[in-house]
């Protein structure tokens, strides 16, 4: 790779790359993001390569490109064949032969691999026509399927580092800060602080040594937006960072990424090496006189290290514990120097601002929330994956139009946004516009973009308990309202779910939540009570039924439910008694089965395996289990089916 010394040389190099590429040459893009890899994308790539060789084709006829995640994880491994943009889903190694012979050689679509629209059973061939993609606005992850994250040439071919040229050559640092301010971009890490204003603080400091940091310590359960960006397009993150460093006057940057993201670490480390070789990181970048270097730092996986002061402590080699602000990192950050920290998605937005102007962001969204936002849509939703949508879209559109609704004919119950310290939003608020302020109004938060859909089988006590359990292990434990408050809230939630809840427990939870929320040192504690508060707010009757009637309406809390075999319906088929892991079902051929309640662990296996045409196993909660049918009456006459 040549060392690039000026914008002209960069353009020359870009032209050279593009001229060597034939836009009509078939290219098989296979998603090799973590999700698809887990589903076997590695084997699919190997099979495709093998098949290309076998069928006597070579690299002059067809390319294979291992790309980042386009988002439709539910249907991985994903293969997109360009230039036609034919999208194949759930591709297996065995499909390779047909893909090569039919699509690459024969120019025909393999119909069994394309998306079928469940609403009308129509086959959809092209990626962008699939409803999951069609209703998104994919400014940030759209390039993921187009580039190999291990190839800077691929990024240059789609216009990479044009924004850097614009910033370094055409703009002063002050102008760049102003552009980011004008875009009205708010930080995507959780708090939603306006990025341009934040930059302005550190940029305004007279100190010589300053730092910029990429916060890639994505820790919310179920969230993987930043992982997909770092894995799939690390070059865009780096481009944003270099631009930011120039604007702020920092010559050194850190990328703080969690160790649990090995592929992200690998890809971004390689990307840095390539960008350095090209001379876009290093000394005198593009002849502008600006120097910048960047170091990758792997975090050990503490959730709290996503909090910026804890992240700084961790980077300095100290325990990852937050510190009081002020002083803010912009004044006294890493090693005591002014520091600007933004998360991965925020940095990814920066090149778009420089390349397309601030209105590219500011023209999208609501009054106070601009641009697009990536959500990781998970839980009880048909199309699990990453969705990038304009701010202001409704929750209903995300969950039903893009996400395809709740699978299995179940009813929607709530959506939890904002990670472990977010809130649960019920059906009645599904039409709110998704932005920072509206989510806060209904007791949730934007957070970094986690979105967990829950159906009618979800117990809200169980949900709140889950998040409290997560936080009780992930709080750093330094300040007492967070540490003690979470501990006590969790112990109260535990007793409620065990049927030992008391009158006054809801009020006690609210009181504990108040002190944890208001008195904690950092935002982890400040938002930790949200799961409790939002479930009390919208599902108070569920708390009451657990406490007063010892009843779990969703049949989730094991201590409050029982399974019972209806003697009228049992056909003595033995299925449940054979499957019961606790050997708690007494029964034989032609003997009505009975559950030994002493032995039963309430695992629900019998309920799941009882053939629906019998439907003999019922769930009980809040009511006594009827006494077992006397032994001498258990014999049934006739066939047991």
């Amino acid at each position, binding site marked *: 790779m040549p060392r690039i010394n000026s914008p002209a040389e960069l353009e020359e190099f870009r032209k050279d790359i593009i001229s060597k590429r034939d836009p009509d040459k078939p290219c098989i893009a296979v998603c090799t993001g973590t999700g698809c890899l887990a589903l076997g994308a590695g084997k699919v790539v190997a099979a495709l390569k093998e098949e290309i060789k076998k069928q006597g084709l070579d690299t002059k006829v067809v390319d294979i490109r291992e790309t980042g995640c386009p988002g439709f994880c539910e249907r991985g491994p994903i293969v997109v064949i360009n230039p036609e943009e034919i999208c194949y889903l759930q591709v297996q190694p065995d499909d390779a032969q047909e893909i090569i012979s039919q699509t690459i050689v024969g120019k025909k679509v393999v119909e069994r691999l394309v998306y079928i629209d469940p609403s009308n059973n129509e086959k959809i061939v092209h990626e962008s026509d699939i409803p999951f993609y069609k209703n998104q606005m994919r400014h940030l992850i759209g390039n993921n399927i187009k580039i190999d994250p291990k190839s800077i040439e691929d990024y240059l071919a789609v216009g990479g580092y044009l924004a850097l040229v614009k910033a370094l050559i055409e703009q002063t640092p002050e102008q760049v800060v102003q552009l980011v301010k004008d875009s009205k971009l708010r930080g995507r890490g959780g708090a939603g602080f306006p990025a341009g204003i934040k930059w302005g603080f550190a940029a305004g400091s007279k100190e010589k040594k300053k730092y910029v940091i990429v916060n890639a310590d994505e820790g919310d359960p179920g969230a993987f937006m930043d992982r997909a960006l770092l894995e799939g397009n690390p070059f865009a993150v780096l481009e944003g960072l270099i631009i930011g460093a120039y604007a702020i006057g920092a010559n050194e940057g850190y990328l703080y990424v969690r160790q649990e993201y090995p592929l992200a670490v690998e890809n971004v480390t390689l990307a840095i090496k390539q960008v350095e070789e090209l001379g876009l990181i290093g000394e005198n970048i593009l002849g502008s006189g600006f120097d910048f270097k960047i170091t990758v730092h792997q975090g050990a996986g503490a959730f709290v290290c996503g909090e910026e002061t804890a992240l700084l402590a961790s980077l300095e080699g100290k325990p990852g514990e937050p510190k*009081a602000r002020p002083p803010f990192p912009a004044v006294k950050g890493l090693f005591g120097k002014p520091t600007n920290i933004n998360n991965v998605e925020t940095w990814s937005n920066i090149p778009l601002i420089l390349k397309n102007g601030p209105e590219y962001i500011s023209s999208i969204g609501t009054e106070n929330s601009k641009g697009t936002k990536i959500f990781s849509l998970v839980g009880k939703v048909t199309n699990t994956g990453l969705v990038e949508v304009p701010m202001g879209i409704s929750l209903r559109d995300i969950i039903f139009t893009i996400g395809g609704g709740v699978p299995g004919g179940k009813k929607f119950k709530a959506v939890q946004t904002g990670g472990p310290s977010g809130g649960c939003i019920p059906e009645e608020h599904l039409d709110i516009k998704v932005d920072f302020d509206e989510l806060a109004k209904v007791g949730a938060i934007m957070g970094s973009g986690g979105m967990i859909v829950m159906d009618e089988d979800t117990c809200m006590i169980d949900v709140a308990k889950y998040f409290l359990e997560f936080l009780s*292990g992930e*709080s750093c*434990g330094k300040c*007492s309202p967070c*540490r003690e408050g979470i501990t*006590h809230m969790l112990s109260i939630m535990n007793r409620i779910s065990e049927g030992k809840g008391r009158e006054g427990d809801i009020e006690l939870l609210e*009181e504990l939540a108040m002190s944890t929320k208001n008195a904690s040192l950092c935002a982890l504690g400040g938002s930790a009570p949200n799961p409790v508060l939002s479930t009390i707010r919208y599902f108070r009757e569920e708390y009451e039924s657990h406490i007063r009637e010892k009843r779990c309406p969703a049949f989730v809390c094991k201590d409050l439910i029982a399974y019972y075999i209806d003697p009228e319906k049992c056909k003595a088929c033995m299925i449940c008694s054979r499957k019961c892991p606790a050997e708690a079902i007494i029964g034989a051929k032609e003997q009505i089965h009975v559950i030994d309640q002493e032995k039963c662990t309430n695992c629900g296996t019998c309920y799941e395996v009882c053939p629906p045409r019998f439907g003999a196993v019922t769930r009980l909660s809040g009511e006594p289990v009827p006494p077992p049918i006397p032994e001498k009456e258990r014999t049934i006459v006739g066939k047991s089916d």
Partner: protein
Amino acid sequence: MSKIHLQIDGREVEAEEGMTILDAARSVGIHIPTLCHHEELEPYGACRICIVEIDAGGRKGLGAACVRPVDQNMVVTTRTEQIDNIRKILVEQFLAHAPESEVLLSLAKEYGADKDRFEKQSSFCILCGLCVRYCNEVEKKNAIGFYDRGSTREIKFIPEVAARECKDCKACFPLCPTSYLQAAYHLTEAMGFPPSSPCRDQKV
């Protein structure tokens, strides 16, 4: 250094730049309760009992007086119903650890805290960190540190260091707001059962 003018509980207070709200309040005899604060140590801001209401140029919020630097024209209120409620619940949570602690009982009296409100906890320690920080910052021995995080965080003596340093020091003992027991227990454990001791595995 320039002077900072602020208001605490309606009184005009003149403070030095770099002072904390707690320093400024104490300089004019206004009492704010503290547990994890110590004159010889870096401000820590962990127990949160010193929480006060701060209005800094229209931005209102709660903050720990021991770590928050004073600002020009800041308006501070050290007691409100909300503050008292928070302090009450914090003291109740601490008392679940150390129900006999005199310091805590006197705070309980002041804020109407009920020492039996929360489930009793297995450790006396309220993790104010005075022992850890004093050993580290003043004695510079680092014989004791925090271990683990979240609800399982605790203090632990480092046996190798404690065996060498603690016998003639014990400067941390009188700092403990709950009792000496916790520190003494951990010290005994560390000194009596170093990692190589055959008794160590049996004692659990």
